[in-house]
């Protein structure tokens, strides 16, 4: 094995070892999603963020959720159908606001962040 090969193998082993040590795992980055809704939800209506059901939207018209940094997709589930309301980027230590408003019989999602 040449010098370059040895270095590559060494680097690979070091990264595997670092990843397998509990204390050396990199903390995931988190951002925040502020959802404000002016929409009156029907009994079985549910919102989800990246597939996870959002609890408490019926009792409150705004929520702040902690979420792993990456992309976010806000979806409404109504009568067995799903509507993607908006998609946005969730960045480390930043907050993105998604405001839901009724506009001409449809739901408009305005994103600011």
């Amino acid at each position, binding site marked *: 094995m040449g010098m370059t090969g040895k270095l590559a193998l060494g680097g690979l082993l070091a990264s595997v070892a670092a990843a397998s040590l509990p204390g050396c795992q990199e903390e995931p980055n*988190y*951002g*925040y999603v*502020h959802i404000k809704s002016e929409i009156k939800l029907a009994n079985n209506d549910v919102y989800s963020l990246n597939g996870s059901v959002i*609890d*408490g939207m019926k009792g*409150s018209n705004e*929520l*702040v*959720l*902690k979420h792993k940094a990456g992309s976010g997709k806000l979806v409404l589930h109504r009568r067995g159908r799903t509507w993607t309301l908006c998609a946005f980027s969730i960045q*480390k*230590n*930043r*907050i993105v*606001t998604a405001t839901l408003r009724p506009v001409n019989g449809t739901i408009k999602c305005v994103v600011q*962040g």
Partner: protein
Amino acid sequence: MLRRSGSLVSVALFSAALVLIQFPAQTAAQEVDIKTAPSAPPLANPGDDFVKQYSALKKQLEALGGKIKKSAGEIENLTSPDAARKQINTLQGLIANTLGLVTNNGDVAKLGKRVIDYARSKQKQFESDTKFSPEERAFLQKEWKRVGAQTEAAISELSRARGKLTEMLKTVQARGDFMKELQALKNANKMLEVVKTLAAELRTASAALQNFSRTAKPPKAGM
């Protein structure tokens, strides 16, 4: 025909007698089962965990509120735009981490909701209870109502802190973004002006946050 129906009647009467003989025995066996069966495990009361977590959160918020205030004060005295930008990033991380403690999908908020649901279920349980006297039932219902109301008040304080931190994070984020734009324009004076305004805004907000730790009360122990 008559003889046949007579025998049918006697068979029926015999079977009925057997059922009558067996029925008390079954009841007795069931009673024994009920008496000897271990009682169903009670639902875990999440109240104690909530009090512990809420008290710990109050301390954390107080400490972080102080750090935010200090960091905001330091920004004000900075004269280099680059140092100010770095400090704003640190401050943004600090506020974001603090907000992470009070989000709607955070542990304390979720636990609080469980306590409220639990207190409601206990109140309902004693509405239909026949084991206790009316006075005892009324006392238990009153106590669970108190626990529910105190938890709701604590959650409401948490929601105010969340609102304040959300506002703070949005402010710092927007000021930081504005500073980036100014940096592109190489307008150092304007950058320092933005920093000073931000410091004043944050001082007020962090004072409100520290006030939370003074006023927020978890439900009284002994629930």
